[in-house]
């Protein structure tokens, strides 16, 4: 590839070229690293003829392709330029903070030094999105003076662009959170920004499945949402969740939203209407989850979601009003009715008509583990399970678990031995 033979001049030429492309098309919304052989193909698809002069960058329809051939060279040049600019900027900052006289020319050069840092850091981050020092430099500059909201929204646009190529970049997501914090500090947090962030995660989640960083970001947003928005989010994201039943991060997000609904009930000023609404939301989620569980056999994420739903249903919505009667606060008529239905669900999931399909076996396993998990949290349910299932069916459930996850039964034995 002959990279070793490239001069420093060549490298900086390349960097200039890169930065020029970025400058000339501020609406670039997608960037990617492309093998050089793909360039002609891209040109063909775009209907343009390649003039063969710039095999390093491809820019059409606001998309930017960077040849993988020049990546290392470009990255080194960008880092070098960035660090040099940053050091110069810091030196200047230190010097001017020490001098007492207002110096207009130093103000001007300070601005141009800052914009140099911004320009080079942008280049670096497009190539190496986790380079924290570059993000920090931008934070440093943005923290100064009174920035317009625009400066922050521009920053959101840049990080969105970077995420198009590096959707898992922790530093990029973290930077977005910093920007949102800054926005909410100096301006009010428009609901719109939160909504857009949420939508961004969903669109990234489409291409980058179970992306922890993306979904974590979405969960983080929940603490900035008013309760109406929380409920809206639950409704809006339902369809996507139904199409991605194996995405456990997506269901975790729903749990986060639902917990927030629960939390709002414990706050002073919450009324009966709120509780009715929460009750309705919970029931709907339970019913919808049951539908999905029956339709998509053996999906772990769905059964895990049910664990959360059922446990909270029993512990929060079924509980006796007063816990002073001496009997368990969870064992009442409502719990009985609910758990009865869960046992029916378990029984229908235990039917394994065909040993060839793993899904049936997985379904039986998940259902069995689910019911055991509930009895682990609420030991009083075990007796009910014994009574309703009968010895034979119960043994079948335990055997199913024993085959795949024998260790989950170990502590069960201890628990029940202790009770005898």
């Amino acid at each position: 590839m002959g990279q070793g033979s490239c001069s420093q001049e060549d490298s900086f030429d390349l960097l200039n070229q890169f930065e020029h492309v970025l400058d000339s098309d501020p609406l670039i919304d997608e960037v990617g690293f492309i093998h050089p052989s793909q360039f002609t193909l891209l040109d063909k698809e775009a209907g343009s003829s390649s003039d063969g002069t710039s095999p390093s960058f491809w820019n059409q329809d606001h998309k930017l392709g960077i040849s993988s051939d020049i990546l290392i060279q470009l990255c080194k040049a960008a880092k070098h330029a960035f660090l040099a600019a940053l050091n110069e900027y810091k030196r200047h900052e230190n010097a001017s903070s020490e001098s007492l006289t207002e110096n207009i020319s130093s103000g001007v050069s300070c601005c141009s030094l800052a914009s140099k840092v911004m320009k080079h850091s942008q280049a670096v981050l497009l190539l190496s999105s986790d380079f924290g020092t570059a993000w920090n430099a931008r934070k440093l500059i943005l923290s100064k003076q009174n920035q317009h909201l625009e400066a922050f929204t521009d920053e959101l646009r840049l990080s969105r662009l970077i995420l198009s190529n590096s959707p898992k970049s922790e530093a990029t997501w973290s930077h977005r959170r910093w920007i949102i914090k800054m926005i909410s500090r100096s301006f009010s947090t428009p609901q719109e920004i939160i909504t857009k962030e949420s939508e961004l995660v969903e669109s990234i989640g489409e291409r980058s499945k179970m992306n922890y960083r993306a979904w974590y970001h979405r969960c983080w947003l929940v603490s900035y949402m008013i309760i109406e928005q929380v409920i809206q989010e639950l409704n809006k994201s339902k369809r996507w969740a139904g199409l991605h039943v194996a995405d456990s991060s997506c269901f975790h997000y729903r749990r986060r939203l639902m917990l927030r609904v629960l939390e709002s009930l414990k706050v002073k000023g919450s009324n009966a209407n709120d509780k009715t609404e929460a009750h309705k939301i919970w029931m709907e989620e339970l019913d919808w989850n049951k539908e999905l569980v029956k339709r998509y056999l053996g999906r772990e994420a769905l059964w895990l979601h049910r664990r959360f739903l059922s446990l909270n249903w029993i512990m929060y919505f079924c509980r006796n009003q007063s816990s002073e009667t001496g009997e368990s606060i969870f064992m009442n008529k409502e719990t009985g009715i609910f758990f009865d239905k869960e046992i029916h669900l378990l029984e229908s999931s235990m039917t394994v008509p065909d040993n060839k399909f793993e899904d049936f076996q997985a379904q039986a396993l998940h259902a069995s583990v689910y019911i055991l998990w509930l009895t682990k949290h609420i030991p009083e349910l075990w007796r009910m399970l014994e009574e309703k299932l009968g010895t034979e069916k119960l043994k079948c459930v335990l055997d199913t678990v024993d085959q795949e996850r024998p260790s989950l039964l170990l502590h069960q034995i201890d628990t029940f031995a202790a009770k005898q």
Partner: protein
Amino acid sequence: MSSTSSSSLQMGELVADKHVRYILMAEKKKESFESVLMDHLRMNGAYWGLTTLALLDKLGSVSVDEVVSWLMTCQHESGGFAGNTGHDPHLLYTLSALQILALFDKLDILDVGKVSSYVACLQNEDGSFSGDMWGEVDTRFSYISICCLSILKCLDKINVKKAVDYIVSCKNRDGGFGCTPGAESHAGQSALAITGSLHHVDKDLLGWWLCERQVKSGGLNGRPEKLPDVCYSWWVLSSLIMIDRVHWIDKAKFVKFILNCQDLENGGISDRPNDAVDIYHTYFGVAGLSLLEYRGVQAIDPAYALPVDVINRIILNR
């Protein structure tokens, strides 16, 4: 090496020498793709590589002076360490730096007060820790801070009770811990172990969630419905050991899985069989085998992620 020599190897053996060679060569290859794009986390890479060498009893193959002098150029005036020379400091790299110095028994070259102050200053009002001055909070940073100060024997510089309370507030109903309250479960129990607050953990519940990470192939995943990945051998396994539930997974199957992730020709370990290798997964694979007491691998401490004899040395000194 010809292919016949690799196929004549017994199915399921750790090709330790190949891994050592892989690591030593990677340290030298500064111009490689991986190296250039990852040079901001060189400190972490160094820790992974060096600890693996230590576990395979080959730490002597590197030049201590070379590593340590480079390492010290990464120290920032605030006392914290950066991922590489001239970069910004962060807790992540500070821990790796301390761990590397511990491996070489060179902790005494540090200005302990300076480093510990950097770490202690990152504790927030609610007991949580930020990764650096820019404020991102995560229970990983709690673990890292506690680990750092524990190695430096300055735990009293932070509010330990608040730190523990914060981690506990990140406990989820499924038994696992998230990176902030309400986040999806990941790993934070190491911190609790070090501070001796393991009683805050519901061991059965956590053990349940952890052992459900083992999939049919014997490997461990990090979250439900995900593919197994060798790096989870560390997180899941070390947690299970600390809560005395390691017998809840099928150890033999897991060992087999890790061994299948090796590149038998060129050395190195990948995230799952037949993928490309890297230093990160090589370290976690070997560390996982160490936790499972694999023959020929030195014992590693599950809380500190350092060889047991290194930890003993720290505890017994001063």
